[in-house]
């Protein structure tokens, strides 16, 4: 099939990603002629209808951009608005927000590692089929995932679109006793996460290293969730307020999608690989040791190994949750007052998939004048296409079906969340058909 003529890798409905996308790679002989990651998810226009809403509504409204990482949206929203209002939260609230994020990372990473990504490495179409041969592994994964959800349920009432996050703090904060109830589960989860690192480290990884610009938050004392400067391995070191000076969204003719790039340089990578490579020294010892045993040393440049890095971040999230629970003393009040005033605030937090940028401008009544949101997947989109261009070239001699699956696997390595990305993406309406398949041309 890789003879004189060209051939095409085509996946009309990308599976095991959040949201709706399609993949199209056209090869001409040994050369990759064209790569398109098409997005046909409809736009939902969040930045437009946020205008005129009160700032107190932003955490709940923006959570609805993504059912997979609602806490990330709530966190970036409250931090940006608190900055616009010039208010500081209680240190106990800060701790609880870290714990909340731990819950989301555990749930989301566990979902991705076991249910969306591992089936690729083991040759199954999905986790249900995988469970037929690996029942114990899947049951353990479900228990681990449930523990992440339990943290979110306790702090936020429910795991999808939790209801307790407020500008200035929380509507209600838990007691020490309630948090201590999580400890047994989290100790089990820590062990299960260590086993996840060992399990994923045993997979076969394609030999595919790229020279990435990694972009992540960096904090002087901790592995990043909610605070820190934005840094990269190419000397970027900025405050969230400077984000739009350094990053820009470009319109791309072939895909009709806006791609975020670093001004003057191009594509970049956000998410677990970037965080790990830029913050390895801030991981707790248990996570660093697990990484070392798995043969991970920063910088990890093989995209496919991101599944192991996600597992290391699971270890971190469990250890960090346990630390927070040990240190937690309830705040004097669940939240500080957040009076209406004019202001502009930006914030970046680390969603499971990478950095999430929010900016709000508020008027004197506390109503939103403008909002801007840049989700992690739209920041990775151009990098995904760059990777596919390189990677597909390695697959020219492969049977088309296997090459297709490998390219899907490469896309899934990013844990893309297309629902997030499309609140601003150009939508490609040309859906050829709904058939999953490949074709030679």
């Amino acid at each position, binding site marked *: 099939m890789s003879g004189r003529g060209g051939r095409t890798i085509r996946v009309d409905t990308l599976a095991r990603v959040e949201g709706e996308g399609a993949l199209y790679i056209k090869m001409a002989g040994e050369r990759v002629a064209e790569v398109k990651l098409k997005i046909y998810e409809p736009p939902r226009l969040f930045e*437009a209808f946020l205008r005129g809403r009160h700032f107190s*509504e932003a955490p*709940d409204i923006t959570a609805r951009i*993504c*059912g997979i990482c609602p806490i990330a949206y709530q966190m970036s929203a409250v931090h940006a608005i608190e900055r616009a209002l010039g208010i500081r939260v209680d240190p106990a609230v800060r701790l609880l927000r870290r714990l909340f994020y731990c819950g989301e990372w555990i749930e989301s990473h566990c979902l991705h590692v076991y249910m969306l990504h591992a089936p690729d490495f083991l040759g199954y179409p999905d986790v*249900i089929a995988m469970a037929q041969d690996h029942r114990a592994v899947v049951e353990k994964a479900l228990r681990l995932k449930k523990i992440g959800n339990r943290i979110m349920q306790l702090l936020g009432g429910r795991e999808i679109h939790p209801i307790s996050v407020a500008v200035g703090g929380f*509507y209600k904060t838990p007691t020490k006793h309630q948090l201590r109830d999580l400890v047994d589960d989290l100790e089990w989860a820590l062990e299960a996460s260590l086993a996840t690192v060992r399990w994923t480290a045993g997979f076969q990884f394609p030999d595919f290293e790229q020279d990435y610009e990694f972009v992540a938050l960096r904090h002087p004392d901790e592995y990043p969730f909610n605070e820190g400067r934005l840094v990269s391995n190419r000397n970027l070191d900025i405050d969230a307020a400077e984000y739009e000076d350094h990053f820009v969204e470009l319109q791309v003719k072939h895909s009709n999608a806006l791609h975020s790039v670093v001004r003057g340089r191009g594509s970049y990578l956000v998410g677990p690989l970037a965080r790990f490579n830029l913050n390895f020294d801030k991981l707790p010892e248990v996570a660093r040791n697990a990484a070392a045993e798995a043969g991970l040393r920063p910088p990890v440049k093989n995209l496919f190994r991101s599944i192991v890095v996600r597992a290391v971040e699971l270890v971190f999230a469990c250890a960090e949750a346990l630390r927070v629970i040990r240190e937690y003393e309830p705040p004097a009040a669940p939240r500080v007052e957040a009076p209406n005033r004019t202001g502009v605030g930006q914030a970046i937090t680390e969603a499971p998939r990478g950095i999430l940028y929010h900016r709000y401008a508020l008027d004197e009544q506390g109503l939103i004048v403008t909002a801007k949101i840049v989700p992690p997947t739209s920041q990775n989109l151009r990098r995904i296409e760059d990777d596919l261009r390189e990677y597909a070239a390695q697959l020219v001699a492969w049977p088309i079906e296997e090459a297709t699956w490998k390219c899907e696997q490469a896309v899934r390595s990013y844990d893309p969340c297309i629902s997030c990305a499309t609140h601003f993406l150009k*939508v490609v*309406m040309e859906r050829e058909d709904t058939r999953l398949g490949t074709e030679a041309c």
Partner: protein
Amino acid sequence: MSSESKRKPARKPKIGVFKFASCDGCQLSLLDAEDELLGVAEAVDIAYFPEASRTMLKGPYDIGLVEGSITTHDDAQRIQEVRRQCKTLITIGACATAGGIQALRNWKDVDQFIRIVYATPQYISTLKLSTPIAEHVPVDFELRGCPINKYQLIELITATLAGRKPNIPSYSVCIECKRKGNVCIAVAGGIACLGPVTQAGCGALCPSYDRGCYGCYGPMETPNTASLTSQLRILGQSDDQISRAFRGFNAWAWQFRKASEECERT
């Protein structure tokens, strides 16, 4: 025949999960049912669920779960095909049952909205309205919530397979508060709360966390929104605030729509 049916297990019912404009949260509820997921997978054939599987089997399906609202010409056509392929069609979540938060465009000039978000508006193809599935095709059951309650989803699938009526109450959040023994935050705390007009299903989460219900399960059966509006005014809420409260995740549900528009008119 009988000997063959002994050898062959009965065909498992086929389920398809279909996404329109949404956040993916409601279909994620199925994967979040950690204790039930493998049991569900044994009872049914999950034939089409792209978020979870590369295997995408063709219809027809015994049950179709539809998430999301209709916002594009393409999707308006696709839902017709999904309806043809599904024996029982169930909509899940506020987007599919009421148009979702994206229905806020329905009161605005959508072209202006698009200009706010997109640099080159002419590339965007979208409808002027975000509408629920039932405005396009007949729907057999609407499961409310933003997001849905995963236990209600399991109950609904179980009931549908058993051919019985699902046990999903249509009374208000107030009943759930009473059952939990919550002190009424509106009466005792003076906090604006949509609980009296909102359908139960969440377990009265917001009042249990010291905040007013924001109506994410949509209108209950026969809600008295006019009475609640008067009560909210007594609590000191401005008409703008009351209008915004009704204009949330179920803004386009006709009872909430009417209530928000009445506040705008006064």
